[in-house]
Structures are given as C-alpha cells and as structure tokens.
C-alpha cells in the first residue's frame, strides 16, 4: 500500500510537523496505555485537525474515528494493541474535540467531511476504517458516498437504529426537543463567555463517570491528563464549551441503516447489549441484521458496555485482528 504523508505546517494552518512526542507527554500511568508514537495535523478547509499515530509508519493503515465527546487519545490502549499486530494506526480529533481547532459551526456533515479530509491526507489507497459510536455512524454516511476509501470497515457500537430509540410519546419528545433548543441557543448566545469548569484530575474524572459508568476511575483519571489541559485554575477538558450532548436537528437514527445496507466492502459490526449504559444507541442484533451488507458480519456482546474497546480491549482487538487477517 502506498501511503501519503500527513499535511503539516506547510499548509499555513498552524499545524505541527510530525514529531516523536512519547517522551514529552505528561500522562498518568494506566496499564497498557501508550502515548502516540507520532503526532501531526491535517487541514480541513482551513481548520486544523490534530492527528495521532501508533506503530510502524510503513505498515498498512488502519484509521480510527472516535465518538462524540471523546477524542483520539481514548484509543491509547486499543490503538497500540492493533499497532503491535503490524498496523499503522492513525486517529484524529474531531473539530472542537481534543487538540483540534474549535470551529464556529458544528454539524454531522461537517464532521463527515473532516473525516474525508483526514483520510485523503493519510493515504491515496483504500485503507481500513474503524469507527466507534458517533464516529462509526458518520463513517457509514461517508462510505455510502465514498466507498472507495475503505478496503474494510469496522463499526464499534455505532449502528443507530430507529427500533431502539427511547420509548417516549410525541408530547414528551417535543418537550425534550424544545428544552434542547432553548439550551442550545442560550449556550450560543453566551459562547464568548463560556469556558470549561476547572477541577482537579480526580474531580474531572468524577464528573465524567456518569458518561462512562463502566470504566475504571484509573482510566478516567488517565483520560483527564490527555484530554484536558492544565492552567492556573486547574484542569479543563479541551472540548469546545459550546458543544453539548444531544444537539438538535432532524437527524434520525434509522437513516443510518440505509447507508449500512449500501456498503460493499468487508464489514464487521460490533454491538454492545448492555441496555443500562447511558451512552450508545442500544441497537439489538435483530435491529441491525436485516440491513447488513452482503457478507457483512455482526457480533453482539451482552456483557460489554458501549465503550467496548476500552472495557474489553483485548477481546475487541483480537476480534478486529481476526477479521482483518485475510486482508493483510
């Protein structure tokens, strides 16, 4: 496979040249976690997206796309495991997340376009794409429109379905949408004053725990040291404070299934069956199976939560590597 280099400072968007950063990283220890071997940035129409890499730069490329309110360093255990098996793993931070630029505007289609810009900067040949949660859902959209980008696609609990949407009546749904609208607009009115609340490492980890109740406190504290920055007042998450969970718009989970059925590359979907995990779409095997592309494979774990690759890293890494073995 021919790989292209990652765009950097020459594009004038403030990006950094690839550098060996492992020794410079100030991270809290977590078993198996490894800082990226290389960092850089790519340009998406003038917006700088931070990019991390693990593994042999000459190895075949596997690109990972993180989920909403996550960032590429959430792959710090999973990515090295894949890289050790002979892959060059590349992951980038979505706009407004991690070390990427904050944007004036955010949206699903802009994220999808950023993924295209990142992938095109990494390789001119089809690569393996892996997406978790929202990242997996966005890759479904991208690959329906640009199937030649991927020689295989792995989706980790990023398969939305209308069948598993929360069971709420129309009045309640409208009430939720209306509250979301008001809070979103209020937040945008105050965007110049917004900042993430500072805290200690332990405090930020505790505040994130409700989103990740099945993940250990040690992991969450590690995440703080790679996903937050420290200033005079303490640690603050890097994510743009104007972003909030939920968002609004007419997007429906079921629309993604049309994209799934249209795929033509080898496909592995992995679903979490833990219904009380607060994150994820809670799609069931029977929701997704009828929409699998020809030859597509679907695995379902009723005892692993939404963050499958963090909760059971070895199990999921082995599954992915076994699926990819024929493609090496």
């Amino acid at each position, binding site marked *: 496979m021919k790989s292209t280099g990652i765009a950097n400072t020459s594009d004038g968007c403030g990006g950094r040249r690839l550098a060996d950063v492992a020794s410079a990283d100030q991270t809290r220890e977590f078993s198996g976690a490894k800082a990226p071997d290389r960092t850089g940035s790519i*340009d*998406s*129409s*003038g*917006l700088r997206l931070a990019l991390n890499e693990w593994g042999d730069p000459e190895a075949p490329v596997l690109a990972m796309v993180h989920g909403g309110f996550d960032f590429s360093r959430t792959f710090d255990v999973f990515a090295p495991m894949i890289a050790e098996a002979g892959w060059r793993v590349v992951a980038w931070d979505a*706009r407004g997340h991690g070390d990427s*630029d904050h*944007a*004036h*505007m*955010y*949206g699903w*289609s*802009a994220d*999808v*376009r*950023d993924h*295209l*810009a990142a992938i*095109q900067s990494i390789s001119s040949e089809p690569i393996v794409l892996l997406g978790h949660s929202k990242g997996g859902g966005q890759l479904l*959209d*991208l690959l*329906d*429109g*640009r199937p030649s980008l991927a020689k295989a696609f792995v989706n980790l609990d990023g398969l939305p379905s209308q069948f598993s949407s929360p069971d709420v009546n129309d009045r309640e749904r*409208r009430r939720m*949408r*209306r509250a979301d*609208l*008001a809070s*979103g*607009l209020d937040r*945008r*009115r105050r*965007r*110049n004053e917004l900042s993430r609340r500072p805290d200690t490492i332990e405090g930020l980890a505790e505040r994130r725990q409700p989103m990740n109740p099945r993940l250990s406190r040690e992991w969450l504290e590690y995440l703080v040291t790679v996903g937050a920055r420290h200033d005079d007042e303490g640690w603050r998450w890097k994510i743009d404070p*104007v972003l909030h969970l939920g968002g*609004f*718009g*007419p*997007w*429906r989970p079921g*629309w993604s299934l*049309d*994209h799934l059925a249209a795929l033509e590359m080898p496909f592995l979907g992995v679903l979490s069956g833990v219904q009380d995990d607060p994150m994820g779409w809670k799609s069931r095997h029977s929701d997704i199976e009828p929409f699998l592309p020809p030859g597509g494979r679907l695995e379902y774990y009723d005892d692993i939560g939404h963050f499958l690759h963090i909760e059971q890293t070895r199990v999921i890494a082995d599954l992915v590597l076994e699926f990819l073995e024929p493609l090496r």
Partner: protein
Amino acid sequence: MTRSTEFLLNGSLRLALHTLAEGEGHPLLLLHGLGEQSPMSRPAWTSAWNGPVLALDFTGHGDSDVPVSGGYTPEGLMSDVDAVLAQLGPVTIVGRGFGAWVGLLIAGARTSLVHGVILFDGSGAVGGGSQPPTPYVNVLPASGTTKPDPYALLELSRDPRPPDYALDYVRFVLEDSEIENPIVVSARIRPEWLAAVAADIGVIELPLEQAIESFA
C-alpha cells in the same frame, strides 16, 4: 432611505443587520434565501409595515463574516437570528426560501420573541428534501472571504427537512403564541415540509402583502 448597517456578534463572527426603513413599533425582519443577501432598499411589498424594516445577512452571506470550514446547518443559523432577537427584542419575520425555513425554526424556538412569521418563496426552500439525499461528501478549498460561502451553498442545499420535524416547530409556536394566526404561508412553491405546515389547522395562507398587513 439608503440602508444603514450595524454589525452584531455571533461568537467571533460579525453579522450584518441592515436598516431599510425607520419607524415606530417592533421591527419587521427580512431573512433572505440561500445564496442571496439582504435587499439594498425596502421592498415595495413591505409598504404596509409602519415600524422599522430590517434585514439580516446570514453567516457566509452578504456583508456578514465567513466562518472557517463551513459546518452550516439551519439549526446553527438560528443563532444568527437569535443574535438579532437578543439585541432588539420581539420582531415579525418574513423569510424567503431558506430564510422561511430558518424563520419557522426560530419562531418555534423563541416563541416570546417572534411575533409572527411569514413563509415566502425564495432560494433554498427545498433543502435536501424530506429524507437525506444521496450521499455526497466533498472537501472544498478553504473559502476565505468568498461570498456566498461555497460551504453554505453545499451544506444548506442538502439538509433534510422532514415534514413532521417542521410540524414540531409549528406546535411550539401554536402552543405559546398570543397571536391568533402566528404562522402565515405566502409561498406558492411548497416543498413537502412547507405543504405540511400550510395544511396544519393552526396555519393560515395569505398573499404576501396581506400577510404583512395582518401583523402590522
């Protein structure tokens, strides 16, 4: 009168708000269509309005700033209009095409600040249709200050507009508004979302000039 312009901030971007006519009372706010910009002078069809007549250039259009790397959504551009509401208080809105769609959304989101909305013909009324259109993902060169922003044209002509989603906003307006007929459809060309809105029992239809007169 020659239009005068002031600039409002939405985040770090400047929005151009033009005054086309002075007057007493709450303003009539004109929202242009996709790829358009505010008119240079007061349109004749606003003659029944005695209050101020204002017009907003959406982000990436007219005299307003262009953001880096797009990300346009109708819901996001609601915050453009919301910046006007924060500055001026209540307005009545006339939206053309895409502006009609945003006008309906902001009327539903800020019911106490939008005293009636008129949905009229114009560019960008259809959007992407009721369902997501065929996937088309493309990266454009950084647009700099080109207007209308090519990303606005790309992204705002492809956003899905399901009729039931539009009707949610109709419900928001009708549940809260103190006006008898707060939503008026004057458009003759009606994509599915607008046909559904026009068919709602709480929505009336009037020619544009009569619609403006009904709120004057």
